[in-house]
């Protein structure tokens, strides 16, 4: 028969585990917001920075790079930007994988048997004790 004290302990544990999981996920969110990926091209004359969501936050071009022909310049800029986004995505992926690992120990959902036993036990108490 279910023991209310054990149930209480179990509930406390569920609350703790959930709180802990939420804490890890919020922390991951904070870290992702701070992610920065950098990319370079044209021997460092072009640099790009992207954040964890892939938004381009900065582009720096050395004036010497403007000597390149326009088609080549475009290709180099593309490469720098893509490299920045790729690095940001990689860092974000690492944070997510880490968080998923830590938050993974969420409590098992209550099954039908668990609930039925307690409902039956409560019903019995009502009939025998209450009236």
């Amino acid at each position, binding site marked *: 028969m279910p023991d209310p004290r054990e149930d209480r302990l179990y509930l406390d544990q569920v609350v703790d585990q959930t709180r802990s999981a*939420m804490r890890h996920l*919020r922390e991951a969110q904070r870290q992702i917001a701070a992610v920065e990926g950098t990319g370079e091209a044209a021997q460092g004359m072009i640099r790009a920075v992207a954040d964890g969501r892939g938004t381009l936050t900065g*582009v*720096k071009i050395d004036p010497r*790079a403007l000597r390149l022909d*326009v088609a080549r310049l475009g290709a180099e*800029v*593309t490469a720098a930007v893509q490299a920045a*986004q790729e690095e940001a995505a990689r860092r974000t992926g690492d944070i997510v994988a880490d968080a998923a690992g830590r938050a993974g120990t969420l409590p098992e959902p209550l099954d039908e048997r668990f609930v039925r036993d307690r409902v039956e036990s409560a019903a019995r108490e009502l009939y025998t004790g209450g009236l």
Partner: protein
Amino acid sequence: MFGFDLDPGDIRPQDVDRADEQNARVLELLAEGEERLGEIVGAGGGDRGHVHATAAADGRVLKITLDARAVREGSQALADEILLAVRQAQQDAQRQADDLLRSAFEQAFPGRAVDPVAVRERLVNLLD
């Protein structure tokens, strides 16, 4: 949330069938939607039109091209133009993705209006 109008105390066989049908339709639409999402190309042209950028729905830059006049105003102006063109391309891709999402929802749940921007914001704030 999805307009089932179910009475939990009286679930009829036709309710279950309807739920099954909607479920199958949603899965179909999700698969189709994912493919179409991957094909989206957003475009941005900066404010002087010398830089052209394209981006995918997930924000990844596909290509940046410059025309001959792009380099006339110096490297700082060019950098600013590139940032702007990329942002515009990403926003355009996002708008197309939202349209796709909205139309997929309308097909799966006819008669229910969904605001993809609101859904996205709620998802992002879920942990707050």
